[in-house]
C-alpha cells in the first residue's frame, strides 16, 4: 500500500508522461474563495487513453486548464502542487516556455466545434498558424523573419506560408476530410459540426503532441458523428502514439475508449484505476453511486438509483471528505479529515477512509418511496 501524499519524489515513475501532485487551484471571487481543486493527483502514461469523469462543476476542465496553465488570472490561481510533464514541472515554467509547449507538446480540443474555430480565418490558415508557431519550414521559423530586410521578408514569408499550407492540407487529409484542398480554403461557418471538430483535431494534432486533452470533444455532436470522431481519435492515437486525456461526463464513451479512468468529485480525485475495474467493481461510494445511475438495458428498474443531495458549494465546502454529507457510509472521521488517495491494489487508487468496508458491503438497494 503506497500513499501518494508526502512522497512524490520517489513515487513518480519514470514512465509517466504527466503526473499531477497535490494540485490546488482556487478562484478568488467577490462571494469568496472558490476552492475548485483541492489535492488533485493523477498520472497519465505515454500513449494511453485516460478518462476523467465527474459531475458538472467538479473541476475536470479546471484540472485540464491548470495543466495548460490557461487559468484566467485573476480570478483564478494555482496555489500549490506539481504538474510534472516529461519530468519537468510546468508550474515553474515561464509564460514563453509554456507557449512553446502549448499546441506543440500538449494540445487541447474543445467542446463546441461551432465556436472553437475563429470565424474570420479560413480553416487552412488556422492550421497554418499552429504549424508556423512551432515548426520550421525550409529551415526557417517565423521567428527568424525579422532578421531579413523588408524586401526579402515578404518573399520568405510567402514561401514559408506555402509550405505550411501544404502541410495543413495533409493534416486535414489525415482526419479523413474529403477534398482537403477545398476545405482548407473555407471558413468555419461553411462546415458542418463534425467537419469542424475534425478540423479542430487536425489543428491540434498538426505538431504531433505527446498529450492531447479532449475536453468533452463530442458533447455537442450528434450520436453518429460522435462515434466517427471517437473512432478517428483512436486511429490517430495509434498512428501518432499520442496520449489522450478524455474529459467527459458520458460514461459510455469512457467505457468504450479509455484504458484508465479517474473519477472526480468536488475538486478531489476520489478513485483512479483501470477502466474495467472502476466500472465493474468500484470501491468509492461516489463511484458506486455514479455507476448505479447508469440505466442498463438488461436490468428492469422502475427508478434509477440516485445519489441524494447536491454537489457542495465550493466556497464553503464540507470539512473532511467533501462527499460525506451525501455518503451513506460516512462516519465521524470523514467529517474531520479528508481521506488521502491510497493505492489499494496495483494501479487502483481510492480516496476513502472506509474503502475496505465499502468494498465488502453489498450494494444495498435504497428503499423506494411509494
Amino acid at each position, binding site marked *: 500500500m503506497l500513499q501518494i501524499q508526502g512522497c512524490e519524489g520517489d513515487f513518480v515513475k519514470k514512465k509517466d508522461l504527466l503526473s499531477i501532485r497535490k494540485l490546488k487551484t482556487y478562484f478568488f471571487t467577490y462571494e469568496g474563495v472558490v476552492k475548485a481543486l483541492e489535492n488533485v493527483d493523477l498520472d497519465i502514461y505515454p500513449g494511453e487513453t485516460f478518462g476523467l469523469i465527474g459531475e458538472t462543476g467538479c473541476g475536470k476542465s479546471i484540472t485540464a486548464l491548470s495543466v495548460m496553465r490557461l487559468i484566467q488570472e485573476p480570478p483564478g490561481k494555482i496555489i500549490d502542487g506539481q504538474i510534472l510533464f516529461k519530468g519537468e514541472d510546468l508550474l515553474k515554467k515561464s*509564460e514563453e516556455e*509554456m*507557449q512553446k509547449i502549448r499546441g*506543440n507538446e500538449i494540445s*487541447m480540443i*474543445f467542446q*463546441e466545434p461551432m465556436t472553437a474555430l475563429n470565424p474570420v480565418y479560413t480553416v487552412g490558415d488556422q492550421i497554418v*498558424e499552429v504549424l508556423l508557431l512551432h515548426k520550421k519550414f525550409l529551415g526557417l521559423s517565423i521567428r527568424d523573419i525579422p532578421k531579413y530586410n523588408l524586401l526579402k521578408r515578404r518573399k520568405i514569408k510567402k514561401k514559408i506560408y506555402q509550405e505550411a499550407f501544404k502541410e495543413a492540407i495533409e493534416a486535414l487529409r489525415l482526419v479523413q476530410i474529403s477534398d482537403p484542398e477545398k476545405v482548407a480554403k473555407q*471558413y468555419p461557418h461553411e462546415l458542418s459540426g463534425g467537419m469542424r471538430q475534425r478540423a479542430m483535431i487536425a489543428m491540434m494534432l498538426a505538431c504531433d503532441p505527446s498529450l492531447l486533452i479532449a475536453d468533452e470533444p463530442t458533447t455537442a455532436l450528434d450520436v453518429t458523428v460522435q462515434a466517427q470522431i471517437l473512432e478517428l481519435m483512436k486511429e490517430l492515437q495509434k498512428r501518432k502514439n499520442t496520449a489522450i486525456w478524455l474529459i467527459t461526463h458520458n460514461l459510455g464513451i469512457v467505457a468504450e475508449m479509455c484504458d484508465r479512468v479517474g473519477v472526480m468529485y468536488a475538486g478531489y480525485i476520489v478513485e483512479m484505476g483501470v477502466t474495467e475495474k472502476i466500472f465493474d467493481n468500484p470501491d468509492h461510494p461516489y463511484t458506486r453511486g455514479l455507476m448505479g445511475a447508469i440505466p442498463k438495458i438488461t436490468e428492469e428498474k422502475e427508478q434509477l438509483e440516485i445519489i441524494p443531495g447536491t454537489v457542495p458549494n465550493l466556497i464553503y465546502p464540507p470539512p473532511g471528505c467533501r462527499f460525506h454529507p451525501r455518503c451513506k457510509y460516512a462516519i465521524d472521521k470523514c467529517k474531520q479529515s479528508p481521506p488521502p488517495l491510497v493505492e489499494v491494489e496495483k494501479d487502483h487508487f481510492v480516496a476513502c477512509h472506509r474503502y475496505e468496508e465499502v468494498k465488502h458491503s453489498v450494494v444495498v438497494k435504497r428503499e423506494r418511496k411509494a
Partner: protein
Amino acid sequence: MIKSKKLEEFTKKHESKIKDIKHMLYLFRRSLLSMMGLILVLFVLLVAVFAPLLASQHPSFVEVTSERGTKRIEERWSINFDEKLLPPNSNHLFGTDDYGRDIFSMVVYGARTSLKICLLVVIVSTIIGVVLGSIAGYFGGKIDEIIMRVTDIFLSIPGLILALAVASALGRSIEHVMEALIFVWWPPYARIIRGQILSVRENQYVEAARSIGASSWRVLFKHVVPNSFSPLLVQITLDLGAVLLVAAGLSFIGVGATPGTAEWGLMISTGRMHMFHAWWYVTFPGLAIFITVLGFNLLGDGIRDVTDPRLRR
C-alpha cells in the same frame, strides 16, 4: 490566353474570399440607400483626387512665418476684383466670390481639405482608441481600470471648447483643429472596442488560440480585435461625416482654416454676408458639405446592415 489562365488560377486560389466579397456586394446591392451612399462617397473621393483636372483656377502654396515664428505652408488664391460676385455662368460654373475667385474651383479643392481632415482625424483616433480599448478589455484588472478612467477624463473635455482653446493658444490653422479633434475623438472608440472585446474574448476560439501556444499580443490582435471590429466600422463611417461637420463648424466660427483657404465651412462663413445678393456663394459649399455628410451617413448605415447578421433581411 495566358492572361485568362492566370485569372483562372487567381479566382481558384481566392475562391472563398471572392465568394465572401460577392455575398457582401449582393447584400449591399439590395439596399438602395447604402448604394447611394457609396456612390456619393466615391464621387467626392474622385473629385478630391482629380481636383487639378476639374478646377479652372488653382491655388498656389506659399510658406509663411506666423507672428510666433513658426513656419507653415499656406494656400493662396489669385484675386481678381473685376470679376467679383459674378453669378454662375459658363466661365464660372458656381459663380465667383467677393474677391473674384472661382467658387467651383474652391469647392473642388475644398473636398481635398475636408477629406484630409475627416480621414486623418478618424483614422488616428481609431488607432489610439483600438489600441487602448483592446488592451483595457483584454487584459482587464488594473490596466483596464487605469485606461478607462483616463478615457473618462478625456470624454469630459468639451471638443469645441478645446478646439477654440488650442486655436487661440497655438494660432488659427487646420492642423490645430485636427489635433484638438483627435484629442477628443478617440475615447468613444476605446469604449466601443473594449465592450466588444469583453464579449469576444469569452469565445472558445480565443481559448483555442491560447492553447496552441500563441502569445497574448498575437491572440489579442490576430484573433480578438478582427472579431470585434464591425460595430466600430459603422461608428467610423458615421463619424467621418460628423468630423466634417464639426470641422466646418469650427471654420465657420473662425477657429479652423485660415482666411483665403478653400474650406467649405470658411466659405460659408464669409459668404453669409453676401447671402441675399449672391446666393451661390453659400449655396454651393453648403451643398458640398450636405452631399459628403449624407454619403458617409448612408454608407455607415449600409455597412451596419451588411455586417450585422441580425439586421440582415
